[in-house]
């Protein structure tokens, strides 16, 4: 386990370094002069020069990279160009909302996918199976930036059951969580079905049936338990889709998280803040993936030895 842990963490470290470097380079992809783009047409040459110096953009590229890295390690992400506040404080303020939304989306996905996938697998080729797979196909095909407005139109504007937008109380979380979780639920339901079908063909299920175990016990203790490993992995890996989708979901519902902050800073050309937002979301994703891998290896010894 230790050697697996070591090699996994080493590869995570290289990925993290690469991700940070790529995000660092983003600012150099601004067409023309990035400083001019941030300050706009009305900026005086003195303003331009002082911002250029403040961001270190007058230094050679390698020096800039080194500065960015060492600042990052000290938790210093610079100040927002718009609000002049330290970026790290803004991120700390906004992050809980995104985390809450992502976890709620995950919950919606699991609550929908587990029963749908299980029923589809247990009653293969029945009307339930077809229905569940049709839902799955619809779920991956419906864009969340359309599903969200449709849910608002139905549940908020027409029926008046749920708030249109904002983050006030648990009710305001319902529609954003469904909007975010549906696509994942659809993917997951397919996975649950496929994995369960595979597991149900195993010898130990036949043995369990032969010794006269109740069907519910077979499914819960033997089938679902063994199917849970690949399902957990997929959940971890798909969390990235969830975090990416959170940006759009937060915009639809005016949810005050990192995603909304990203788009706001894009509109204000606050590029240091844009970089920081992308960095936070990507690093959370890398972290979750690494934890998923480690958890998987801890639960299933076969994974450890194959590396």
């Amino acid at each position, binding site marked *: 386990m230790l050697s697996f842990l070591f090699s996994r963490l080493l590869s995570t470290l290289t*990925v993290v370094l690469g991700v940070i470097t790529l995000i660092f380079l983003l600012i150099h*992809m601004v*067409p023309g002069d990035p400083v001019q783009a941030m300050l706009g047409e009305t900026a005086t040459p003195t303003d331009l020069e002082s911002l250029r110096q403040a961001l270190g953009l007058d230094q050679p590229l390698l020096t800039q990279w080194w500065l960015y890295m060492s600042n990052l390690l000290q938790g210093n992400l610079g100040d927002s160009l718009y609000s002049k506040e330290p970026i790290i404080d803004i991120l700390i303020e906004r992050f809980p909302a995104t985390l809450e939304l992502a976890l709620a989306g995950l919950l919606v996905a699991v609550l929908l996918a587990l029963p749908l996938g299980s029923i589809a697998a247990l009653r293969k080729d029945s009307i339930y199976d077809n229905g569940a797979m049709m839902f799955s196909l619809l779920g991956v095909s*419906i864009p969340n930036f359309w599903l969200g407005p449709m849910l608002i139109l139905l549940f908020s504007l027409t029926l008046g059951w749920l708030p249109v937008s904002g983050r006030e109380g648990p009710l305001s979380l319902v529609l954003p969580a469904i909007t975010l979780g549906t696509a994942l639920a659809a993917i997951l339901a397919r996975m649950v079905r496929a994995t369960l079908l595979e597991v149900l063909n195993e010898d130990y299920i036949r043995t369990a049936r032969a010794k006269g175990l109740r069907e519910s016990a077979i499914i819960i203790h033997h089938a679902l338990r063994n199917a849970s490993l690949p399902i957990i992995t997929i959940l971890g890996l798909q969390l990235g889709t969830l975090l990416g989708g959170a940006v759009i979901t937060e915009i639809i519902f005016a949810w005050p998280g990192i995603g909304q902050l990203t788009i706001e800073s894009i509109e204000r050309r606050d590029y240091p803040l*844009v970089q920081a937002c992308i960095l936070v979301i990507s690093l959370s994703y890398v972290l979750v*993936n690494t934890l998923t891998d480690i958890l998987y290896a801890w639960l299933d010894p076969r994974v450890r030895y194959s590396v």
Partner: protein
Amino acid sequence: MFKTQIIIPLIILLLWLVLAILSPWLPLDPNHIILPNILQPPSSIEWLGYDDLGRPILDRLIMGARTSFFVSFWVIFVSLTVGTLVGALSAWFGGYIDFIFVRIMDIFLAFPGILLAIALSAIMGPGIENVVFALSVVGWVGFARLTRAQTLSLKRREHVIAAIALGVKTPRILRYHIIPLLLAPLIIEATFGIAGIVIAEAGLSFLGLGVQPPAASWGSMIRDGTSYMLVAPHMVLAPGFTLLLVVLSVNILGDKLRDLLDVKNHNT
């Protein structure tokens, strides 16, 4: 049953594709503002009604299809070319080259979903070329990873070993003995890729990072429509259903194609 499941989505897709290709020669007026028609609901004269500027929605949907297919075509073309090349070379040469390429792929895979595309379009500014670039930067990795995995197993097949023993040069082996066998999984990946790109392009336009007005995109049409959901629901329903139908058709075709070509170890 199997046939109708293919024919209906195929007709839907071909219809939009033909409309998009023929749009320059059709009598369309997507940018013509007619003030008295503002927010007019669908009627027998204008099937899908008018938007908040009095422009005909059907005409704009067809122009949106053009945007959508243009972006999809170029992103698939670029991602497929770059991805297949990187994946095949990485697996074929192994060693240091493989090590470096795999690390690069890992880095690109570390960005969740559409996020990198949002970042790139935001930094480079809106516009259809930048959308193609941003989505290609995200898209090539999937093809590269698939090609690498397949090439690694193909490398050990007898016909390839025989070709190496006969002294056939590497480019020729890749061209005639490896890449043709990769085609089936790549075609399936590309089909699902189109569904993803259509949604991603619309998503970027929804966020205001895609094509710029007055050019039409299904995504920006949905965004405009959300402001008028109560007074003119047709503005958000028409582009939404079109987008859903097209993406659904592509996904169904992808599913059927996978069953048909029976590719194993593919788990999406």
